[in-house]
């Protein structure tokens, strides 16, 4: 019986990581599900759902030549996997300001309390070494409406952080 696993791969970015890993999984007879692959601070990171009837050991062994050659660290965790169950976001929030510790905790804390379920979050540190700039974009479901999010952020956010909240109205046709 086939099971779902979450494959996590992290390593210094270099050409060919995605091609080598996916080829290896294809040859091992795995189905691929949803994935997020992104470069973070010079590292390449992969989170990938894979479905296979093979035991975990065997799959790790099949991937070993690639992970050793490319110096990647790898995790394989059995998960409860479901496809075709996307939730649609109804709000997009962009946050930016001078980088300092606590922005994410403050913003996400205020939003969670106001009913936001985060579906996707991407953040980056831009600017320069002297003046780092923190930028975060997230999409989610405002379970208590967008106005509740606006209020929560207006009350709790420091003045030097800029926030934009936009509804996402998905057109289906």
């Amino acid at each position, binding site marked *: 019986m086939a099971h779902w696993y979450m494959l996590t791969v992290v390593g210094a970015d270099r050409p060919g990581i995605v091609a080598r890993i996916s080829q290896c999984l294809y040859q091992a007879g795995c189905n691929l599900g949803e994935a997020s692959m992104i470069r973070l601070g010079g590292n390449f990171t992969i989170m990938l759902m894979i479905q296979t009837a093979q035991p975990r050991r065997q799959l790790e062994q099949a991937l070993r030549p690639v992970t050793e050659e490319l110096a990647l660290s790898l995790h394989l965790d059995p998960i409860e996997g479901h496809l*075709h*169950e*996307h939730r*649609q976001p109804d709000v*997009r929030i962009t946050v930016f300001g001078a980088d300092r510790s606590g922005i994410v905790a403050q913003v996400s804390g205020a939003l969670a309390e106001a009913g936001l379920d985060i579906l*996707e979050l*991407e953040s980056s540190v831009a600017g320069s070494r002297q003046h780092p700039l923190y930028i975060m*974009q997230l999409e989610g479901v405002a379970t208590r409406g967008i106005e509740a999010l606006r209020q929560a952020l207006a009350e709790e956010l420091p003045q030097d952080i800029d926030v934009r909240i936009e509804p*996402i*109205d*998905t*057109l*289906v*046709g």
Partner: protein
Amino acid sequence: MAIRDILVYPDPRLKQVAEPVERFDAELRELVHDLEQTMDAGPGAVGIAAPQIGSCRRVIIIDVSSRPKLKNHGRLYLVNPEIIHWEGLETGREGCLSVPDYTGNVVRAQRIRVSALDPHGRPLELDMEGFEARALQHEVDHLDGLLFLDRLVSRRHDLFKRKTYQARKDKP
């Protein structure tokens, strides 16, 4: 007259360029009726195009009146619609009855002028903007064998490069 099955990608009929309607007869009325019933039976669609129910004709319905705060013309039954003028670009999220369980960002013109015929063959000219204009462009794409998947832009960034916006195909 009936609710019809919606074709789902990769059905090749969704990739065909639909034929202009020439006769405004009972067959056309039945097509319009089926389209309407099928759209209303689906989950919250604001438009539908004849190719989605397997009819290779240039007929669409759009109706964004479920968003009363947005400018709109109510329910429109449009035959041989053509966009004769467009202005501005805007990114927005789209999904499609023919592409279940996926949505993505697509760049569309903000304001358009549309010429079309009504189901009796009378000419119409309409100015549309925003969500309604987006709905019309999505449906006219179906008539040209295009899906929103053909126009996806990055999911993560709402900024876009204007140069990457594909020019609309010339109408036959």
